[in-house]
């Protein structure tokens, strides 16, 4: 019986191209618009809207490391002329200084990135401080090892450590891009040096930065399109709840619901039909839009299992909203609650949940508040999964979604009118 209800709802949805366009087409368009608009805003010289705070923790004395490297060169018996030339270009042998001054201290990045020196004792405090987007850790002997790798053909390449604040996506993405380019530049220099090519014949973009090999705390960055794919999907899926609610209310208004009840179908079967069909269509909507985002915008999920888990939990939460809206509209016998939800509440939830902008980046309170909305919790979970997190890292969001769904279903069941109160 439930399957008949689901099948019928599906057929009706499929025959409403306008509804389908709103549910599936609109989020796809919004992802493109917002993803592009944000990228444009980040490139805008005059209005650097992104503020990124990065801590840098150095476990070495770079000057001493450079001296040590030069002594090593002398020991190797380099000709005096060569040693003099190297001494003259000594400042080019301080990669961390270059990163701090020439890269993070350059024109546009200077306005966007706030670089703070951090001491070892402050590391834990910085890691738990939401105002920092990332912490860059320079290990002991980094400069010496890097120079040795570049000039003495030492086999091991030293690594910088970049830690991400989980609440920061766009800011962290900026830092990661910068450090990655820094590394590419240094690697290029190394290659040129080793192959004996005169670097003056190669034009190097002044705005490109060099860096070292970086392990990123095993986390992938989230692109603007990835962010908005999630933001728009979690927002638009909420509309399936009001759509199914409206279809159910129309059934009641047109006395089809009475017809179903008179066929001796339990109202709880109908209730379950609404819950399951909303959840199922929400899940399909998620898969469709994410599938499109993957094909067109390249939004890829590192791990499938946590992605499916979040999608299922969120689809059930949306199903519970659908059945709650249905129960309330049946109870008060008006469609007003459905209109209120689709016009005002969805927008409000989307804003708090961070669908339009990562509001949580500006305030820890807003982040916590957002995580207490079903879409916000789903969004945080999806972002974590997109960054490479597993199920354990998002379990609290999954628990929240399941508890939310349970409570909503309970309220819906209590509100769903009993016999005689529906007509």
């Amino acid at each position: 019986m439930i399957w008949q209800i689901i099948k019928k709802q599906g057929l009706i949805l499929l025959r409403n191209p306008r509804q389908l366009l709103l549910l599936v087409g609109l989020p796809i368009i919004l992802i493109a618009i917002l993803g592009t608009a944000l990228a444009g805003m980040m490139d805008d010289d005059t209005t650097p809207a992104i503020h990124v705070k990065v801590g840098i923790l150095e476990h070495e004395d770079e000057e001493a490391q450079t001296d040590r490297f030069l002594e090593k060169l002398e020991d190797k018996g380099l000709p005096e002329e060569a040693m003099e030339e190297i001494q003259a270009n000594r400042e080019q042998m301080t990669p961390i200084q270059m990163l701090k001054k020439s890269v993070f201290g350059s024109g546009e990045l200077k306005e966007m990135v706030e670089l703070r020196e951090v001491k070892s004792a402050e590391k834990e405090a910085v890691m738990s401080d939401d105002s920092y987007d990332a912490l860059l850790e320079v290990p002991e002997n980094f400069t010496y090892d890097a120079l040795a790798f570049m000039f003495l053909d030492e086999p091991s390449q030293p690594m910088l450590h970049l830690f991400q604040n989980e609440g920061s996506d766009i800011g962290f993405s900026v830092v990661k891009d910068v450090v990655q380019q820094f590394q590419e530049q240094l690697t290029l220099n190394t290659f040129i040096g080793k192959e004996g090519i005169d670097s003056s014949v190669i034009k190097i973009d002044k705005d490109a930065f060099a860096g070292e090999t970086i392990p990123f705390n095993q986390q992938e960055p989230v692109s603007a399109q990835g962010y908005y794919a999630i933001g728009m999907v979690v927002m638009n899926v909420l509309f399936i709840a009001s759509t199914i609610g409206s279809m159910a209310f129309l059934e009641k208004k047109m006395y089809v619901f009475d017809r179903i009840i008179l066929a001796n179908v339990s109202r709880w079967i109908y209730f379950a039909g609404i819950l399951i069909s909303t959840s199922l269509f929400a899940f399909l909507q998620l898969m469709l839009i994410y599938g499109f985002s993957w094909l067109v915008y390249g939004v890829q999920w590192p791990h499938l299992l946590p992605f499916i888990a979040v999608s299922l939990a969120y689809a059930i939460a949306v199903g519970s909203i659908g059945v709650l809206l249905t129960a309330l509209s049946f109870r008060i016998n008006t469609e007003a609650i459905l209109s209120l939800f689709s016009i005002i509440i969805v927008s409000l939830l989307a804003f708090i949940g961070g669908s339009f902008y990562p509001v949580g980046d500006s305030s820890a309170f807003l982040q916590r508040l957002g995580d207490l909305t079903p879409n916000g919790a789903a969004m945080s979970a999806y972002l974590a999964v997109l960054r490479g997190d597993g199920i354990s890292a998002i379990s609290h969001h999954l628990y929240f979604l399941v508890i939310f769904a349970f409570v909503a279903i309970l309220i819906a069941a209590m509100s769903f009118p009993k016999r005689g109160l529906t007509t």
Partner: protein
Amino acid sequence: MLELVDLSKKYKQFYAVKNLNMFIEKGEIVGLLGPNGAGKSTAISMLSSLVEPTEGDVRFNNKSVIKKPAPLRKVIGMVPQEVALYDDLTAEENLHFFGRIYRLTGAQLKQRVNEVLEIIGLTDRRKDIVKKFSGGMKRRLNIGAALLHEPEVIIMDEPTVGIDPQSRNYILETVKRLNKEKGMTVLYTSHYMEEVEFLCDRIYIMDKGDLIASGTKDEIKRILSAEKTISIQADRLNDSFISKLKQHPTINRVIAEEKEITIMVAKEINMFSTLIKIAEDAGIELNSVDIKTPTLEDVFLHLTGRALRD
């Protein structure tokens, strides 16, 4: 078979139905007549177990069905006043869905869908989306959805509202046929007295939540045995003429429409010359004066002072 005993439904301080007593025997076509807002729909909602009454009982085969409606629901088919169908599904998909909710499956479901499409004359349009149907076709499909499980009793709540005469006749003939050929018991509500007169063996008349008359057509019409109904037609009826009719001591009731006035007078009084004189005094020329055979409309007029469609 079906019995309503002192049935009342009260919404806050307002009685939609008050102390309604009715019975329906197997194989009968019973009419429930009354103007809009008379309480007919509330009465049949209670009868069909959709709405719990405030007071009274509904009995099916001498057993109360208020708390346990399942036995009644198995044998009734309900045709609501509104077209209770899915506009975006085809006729066949609608019937298939309603058949499934009545637990019909497989070959049986297919057979019943075909039979019902045949009964309602929509076999050729089975694959068409309902929203493309005319009002009459929707009404026929609305009836069809209630016939799938071959109910013993069919309750029809104003099934011909807002449709063309051809579709209306088709529906009325279908109801007659179902009753005659399948022995289906029918409760037919309407505010069209001619439909009820055409179809029904017995009639209940409701007004403002109360039952005001009941019986066979002839029994009800006998209520008017002491009066006769006269229809007066003229091109330009004026207020003076209507006023004089209302003030005349031998005229019991006056119902004025655009080009026709209906009056009720005692059976033995000859009104012809009186009417001519009143018309002359009012300055109008009469086209015709007819003495009518009493109709249910006249009975309703007599009982309530209002026309059924007021």
